[in-house]
Every structure is written in structure tokens, then in C-alpha cells.
């Protein structure tokens, strides 16, 4: 039975390689209206053939367990405040004068309770408060909070409304954090299903996504920086599963409203536009018959992006707000980079010049460090898609997107000229890698039974392990992976008779 199945699969693969044209092959991965998602046949893998309900139930139970583990491990600690605490002697100029107690110099009270809030996080409370105002309010002019006001201000205001005034501002943002985490798990499942993989593969992907620490470390954060990646993941699903069935006017309107809100959702608009651009160019390059559709999509996306930005700029101007992006001179960075490249090519001295806002060639060394941090967070989800690239060859779009989304995520470092690694900047690339890892495990299972089934299980559990085994290491890795974070030994903090053990 198993042998016959394998033989059928091999035949199908050979046919797809030899007997069909390249255009046909890529059409399977098409996201245009020509091949709607619903008509793409699901891969009938042996993984789903053997006791599917038991296996699906087991993986679902694993997801529940992992969710519980993450809640227990991360909830209750403000990791963002902790990472900037004086125990770690942050050697960054941004923290000069603020680094004692973790970038907070105000004691707040809420009834009997007194507490501190990370300086960059407090404006989010003001934004939620302003969104609750039915008159024309004043919004907080903190530039960083403006760039993510949709998820750290608008959405929490809906939660506060649903709570009838009994849910606090801080709690409403924390509820959004939890909801976005759950959304990322569900979306991982849906994306894998939308890419025509079976339910078990989708559940396995969701299990890996459950432990993605960029969400769990932010449970009590008020900044929702990761939300750009969540919206991008949502768009991956929409583009594949819903886009094909939409009419042209619906597509245009959807793009307009998406770009308007995602412009103020931690860079989501840029991730989504980059994805649509890559998808359209790629599909247009490999499939002549849908080229016109792809160029229409690309044109509509760029136009909607521009209009969305204009609408957003007008809103922001109306409320006298300023985006962080306006504080940085992209044209200056481009000019400096062009000068650097010209000087380097003509053999001139580049000392004192900047390449992509980094002095000399330090852009490359910084990016290499970032790649190191990215890989060390979960080597399995990087190594498996890389080693399984042949198995994943029918997912070229996703494979291409990984490095592009990684670099786009780090663009903020280029704009700022920072050598500081924030894991949420890599989150869009990580989401794709999670999806690819689950797909690779599923394909490994199908190719080399029974060895494949063991290998697939090792891959999934390996990916789950690296995300969940050591929360303190995640904390270290996701905030720069610096040696100052001594997570290799227990940390006890004493205040007279009170003691807190962090790990």
C-alpha cells in the first residue's frame, strides 16, 4: 500500500518535471485569478493517510500544551522593561540617563498599585484613550507610537469599548497581544492549507508558530511592534485563498483599505507591498498567460499604496502627528550609498563614507551578525528549508521571499544606522520559514517512508523545541543576543525581603 502510494507520488513528480511545461508547473503556485485556490488539488500525502484523526488530535493537543506553556512562561513579566534594566548595563547611547530601572523614570499609580512603564510604551496608553474619545481628540505625538497606532491604539480601543469601560487601557492592549498571537497561529494553519497542504501539515506548522517567542515575549508589552509581521502573514493567506475569487473593483478597494490601516501597523504596508511586487514579477516572469493579470495587480497595489499613504499622511497631519520615518532622510542615505559605491568601484578611499547608513563596510558585518542571531533563534526552521530546497522547489515564491523579507525587516536598522538586532524585524521571514519547515517535514514524510516519518517528526519537534525549550535564551536572543544578558545562570533580584527569580 505504502509502496504503491510512493510510486504514484514519484510518477506525479516526474510528470510534473518532464511532461509539463514550466508554465503549467508554476501555475500550480499561481496566486492570480486564473487558478483559484479551491481548485488546486490537496497533496494526498501518506502523512494524512495513516490514522489521520489520531495524528491530527495529537498535534492539536500539542498546540494546546504549547500555548499553555507559553502563557505560564512569559505572562506576568514585562520582558521589554526587563531587557533594559540596570542588571544588564546596556551599552547604548539611547539609554544614557535612563538605564537604571529599565528606561523608565516615572512611578505611576493605579489605585493601590504602583508600577513603572517603559518610556516608549506609555504613549500607547494615550493613543487608546484618544481613540475612545468621540470628540476630535489630541493624539500623542510620540513618533514611534504613531507608526503602530492601529494595533497599539485603535484595536485596543475596540476591546475597551466591548468591556464597557471596565477594561483598563493597559489590559486592552494586552488582550490585543494575546489575540494577535492566536491570530498568528491560526493564520499559519490557514496559509499552509491555502498552499494546498493537508490538515496535519497545517497543524504541525501551527504548533511551531505557537512558540514563536516574538509574540510570547510581547504578551505584556504595549508596543505591538510584531503586528506588521502578523498582517503580512494574514496577507499571505488572503492573497492565496481569497484574492483569486475577488472581482477587480473588490481587489482595488481591499488594497486601498489594507494599505491605509497597515501604513500605521509597524511596517505592514511595506511588507505587503514587497510581497505583492515579488509575487507579480515572479509570476509574470514564469507564466506568459497570466502576465497581464499580474501587471494589473502590481499597478493596483502600487497605486493603492500611494493613495493609502496620502490618506494616512493627511490624517496624521490633521492631528499634528509625525511618523518616525519622517525623521530620517532616505534620500541622504541613498546619495551617500551611491557615492560610496562609486568611490569603491573607482578604487578611491571609502574611509569616512557610509554604505546604507553604516560606516565603511560595516553594513555587511552587521547583517552577518543579524543573520547569526536570526539562525540561532531556531536553527531548525532555517536549516530544514535550506536542506529541503529540492523538496520545496514547487514553492519558489516562498523560498525567494525569505531573504527579501529578512532584509526588508532590517531596513529599520538601515534607516536608523543601528547595529541593534530586534527579532521582530525578522518576524515576516520567520513566519515564512515556519510555513516552509512544516511543508518540508510533510514532503520528507511522503518521500522516504518509514525513515521519512521519523525524520518528519524530528523536524517538527526540533522546530518546536528551539522555540519553547528555554524562554530566557529567547529573551536574550530576541533583544540583541548580547553577552550582557547572563541567561546561562539564575537571576535573582532582591528588594529587602522580597525576591524575584527571573530564570
Amino acid at each position, binding site marked *: 500500500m505504502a509502496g504503491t502510494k510512493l510510486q504514484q507520488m514519484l510518477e506525479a513528480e516526474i510528470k510534473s518535471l518532464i511532461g509539463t511545461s514550466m508554465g503549467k508547473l508554476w501555475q500550480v503556485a499561481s496566486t492570480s485569478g486564473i487558478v483559484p485556490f479551491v481548485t488546486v488539488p490537496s497533496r494526498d500525502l501518506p502523512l494524512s493517510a495513516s490514522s489521520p484523526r489520531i495524528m491530527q488530535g495529537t498535534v492539536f493537543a500539542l498546540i494546546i500544551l504549547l500555548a499553555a506553556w507559553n502563557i505560564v512562561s512569559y505572562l506576568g513579566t514585562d520582558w521589554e522593561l526587563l531587557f533594559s534594566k*540596570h*542588571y544588564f548595563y546596556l551599552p547604548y*547611547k539611547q539609554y*544614557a*540617563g535612563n*538605564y*537604571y*530601572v529599565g528606561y*523608565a*523614570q*516615572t*512611578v*505611576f*499609580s*493605579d489605585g*493601590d498599585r*504602583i*508600577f*513603572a512603564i517603559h518610556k516608549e510604551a506609555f504613549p500607547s*496608553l494615550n493613543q487608546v*484613550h*484618544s*481613540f*475612545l*474619545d*468621540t*470628540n*476630535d*481628540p489630541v493624539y500623542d505625538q510620540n513618533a514611534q507610537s504613531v507608526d503602530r497606532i*492601529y494595533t497599539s491604539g*485603535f484595536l485596543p*480601543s475596540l476591546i*475597551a*469599548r466591548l*468591556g*464597557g*469601560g*471596565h*477594561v483598563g*487601557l493597559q489590559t*486592552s492592549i494586552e488582550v490585543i497581544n494575546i489575540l494577535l498571537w492566536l491570530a498568528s497561529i491560526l493564520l499559519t494553519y490557514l496559509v499552509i492549507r491555502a498552499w494546498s497542504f493537508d490538515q496535519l501539515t497545517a497543524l504541525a506548522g501551527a504548533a511551531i508558530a505557537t512558540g514563536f517567542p516574538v509574540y510570547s515575549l510581547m504578551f505584556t508589552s504595549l508596543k505591538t511592534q510584531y503586528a506588521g509581521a502578523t498582517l503580512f502573514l494574514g496577507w499571505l493567506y*488572503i492573497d492565496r485563498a*481569497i484574492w483569486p475569487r475577488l472581482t477587480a473593483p*473588490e481587489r482595488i*478597494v*481591499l488594497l486601498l*483599505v489594507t494599505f491605509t*490601516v497597515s501604513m500605521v501597523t509597524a511596517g505592514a504596508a511595506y511588507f505587503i507591498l514587497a510581497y505583492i511586487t515579488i509575487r507579480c514579477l515572479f509570476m509574470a516572469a514564469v507564466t506568459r498567460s497570466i502576465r497581464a493579470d499580474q501587471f494589473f495587480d502590481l499597478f493596483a497595489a502600487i497605486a493603492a499604496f500611494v493613495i493609502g499613504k496620502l490618506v494616512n499622511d493627511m*490624517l496624521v497631519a*490633521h492631528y499634528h502627528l509625525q511618523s518616525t520615518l519622517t525623521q530620517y532622510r532616505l534620500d541622504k542615505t541613498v546619495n551617500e550609498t551611491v557615492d560610496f559605491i562609486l568611490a569603491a568601484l573607482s578604487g578611491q578611499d571609502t574611509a569616512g563614507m557610509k554604505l546604507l547608513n553604516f560606516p565603511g563596510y560595516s553594513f555587511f558585518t552587521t547583517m552577518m551578525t543579524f543573520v547569526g542571531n536570526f539562525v540561532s533563534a531556531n536553527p531548525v526552521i532555517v536549516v530544514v528549508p535550506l536542506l529541503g530546497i529540492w523538496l520545496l522547489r514547487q514553492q519558489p515564491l516562498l523560498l525567494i521571499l525569505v531573504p527579501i523579507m529578512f532584509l526588508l525587516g532590517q531596513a529599520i536598522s538601515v534607516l536608523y544606522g543601528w547595529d541593534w538586532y530586534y527579532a521582530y524585524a525578522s518576524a515576516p521571514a520567520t513566519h515564512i520559514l515556519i510555513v516552509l519547515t512544516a511543508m518540508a517535514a510533510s514532503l520528507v514524510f511522503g518521500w522516504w517512508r518509514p525513515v521519512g516519518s521519523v525524520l518528519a517528526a524530528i523536524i517538527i519537534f526540533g522546530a518546536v523545541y528551539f522555540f519553547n525549550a528555554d524562554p530566557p535564551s529567547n529573551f536574550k536572543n530576541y533583544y540583541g543576543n548580547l553577552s550582557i544578558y*547572563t541567561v546561562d*545562570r*539564575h*537571576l*535573582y*533580584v*532582591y*528588594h*529587602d525581603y*522580597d525576591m524575584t527569580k527571573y530564570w
Partner: protein
Amino acid sequence: MSRTTHPKVPAIVAWGTGQNVNLFYLVELSCTYIALLILIHQPSFRFGIFILVLFFVFYSPNPAPSRPAVREVLTEGLVVLPNTQQTYRFLVNGLADRQTECGLFQHGEVHIQGENLTSLKLQADRGWISQQEVKRFYRESRLKARLEFPGQFPPKELRLVLLNSQQDQAIVRRGAEISGSTIYPDAVYLVFVTDRCVLVFHGRNEITADAGS
């Protein structure tokens, strides 16, 4: 989309009647609503979303949940005037309690953050202070000193005296270090490190603590 009310109607009505004139909010809500209408086709879900949007447009809790009140702003440092001293009391019984788990705490470090800390001289009632050094960090400075205990066992309590023996004033940085209902505002703390553990102790200025109590 065509069989339901135009998605912008609730927002326009709210704006027109003056029920809700928060433009930013209405734009974000309308965009979200339109996106959901395009993505979701089931009539029951669409109706449910419509009702929710109506609720979100016209309802806002009154009074709105309040922002936390500012209890203390600690941006100014604690000034240690020339020829004066500040005493900090540390409860360090954790050193003995954690010895089995963490190993012997033979010595630790005193850390102080602030400005012009070179004028400070440290003294400990139950320990030896040595290797006092100050490193500048932008306009800040960080004072680090070695703290050793004379006996075999660490004490349960320690008093650290910061004596300004020079003519310039020193400033100890302040911040919102909090435990329960107590603020530990001064950036004066002890750190003990072994192969297995890091222990951080926050002390309280005796004058401030007395005044507070």
C-alpha cells in the same frame, strides 16, 4: 458588498449627527469594516460584523478608562553635597540562603550610576571596599567597586556609606525601581555573580526610607 448597507454609512451618520467626530477612529474603523466585508461572504457573519460596527461607531464608555496617575517623577538625581554622606541599607540574607544552590559568594560588586561620582568614597560596615573605579558613559558615570566580606559567611545586613569628601557635588541617578508598594529610587545596588547565579540587591537610602515610613 452590494446587498448590505454601504460600509461607510455608519461612520458618515455618526459624523453627521455629531455622535462621533473622531476622524482618525472612524477612518480606521471604516477601513477595517470594508476589508472584512470583502473577505467574509457568509451573510450571518456579515450581519454580526455590521451590528458590531454600529456599536463601535456610536458607543464609547463614559467615563473612559483612566490613564495611570503619575505618582512620582524621578528624573532629577539625588545630590550628595560636598562633605556630606548618604547611607544605604541592604538586606543580603539571600547570599546565605542561595549558597547551596549558587556556590560561595566570596565577593561582589557595588554599582552606582550618576554624575561626578569620582568624588565619592565608599565604606561598608560589614565588608571591605576596594578597586573603586568610575567609567564615564556619555554624561553619566558608573561607579563600580569590589565588595568582600571579612568572615567565612556573608552578613545578613550591610550598610554602605557614600561619602563626598571633595568640593564638587555628586549626583546619584534616580529611577522607578519598584517592589510591591516600595520605591527603590537610587541607582545604588549590589551584584554578586557565581558560575550558577546572579544576585542583585537593591538598597534603600536610610534617610529617604525613614522619611517614607
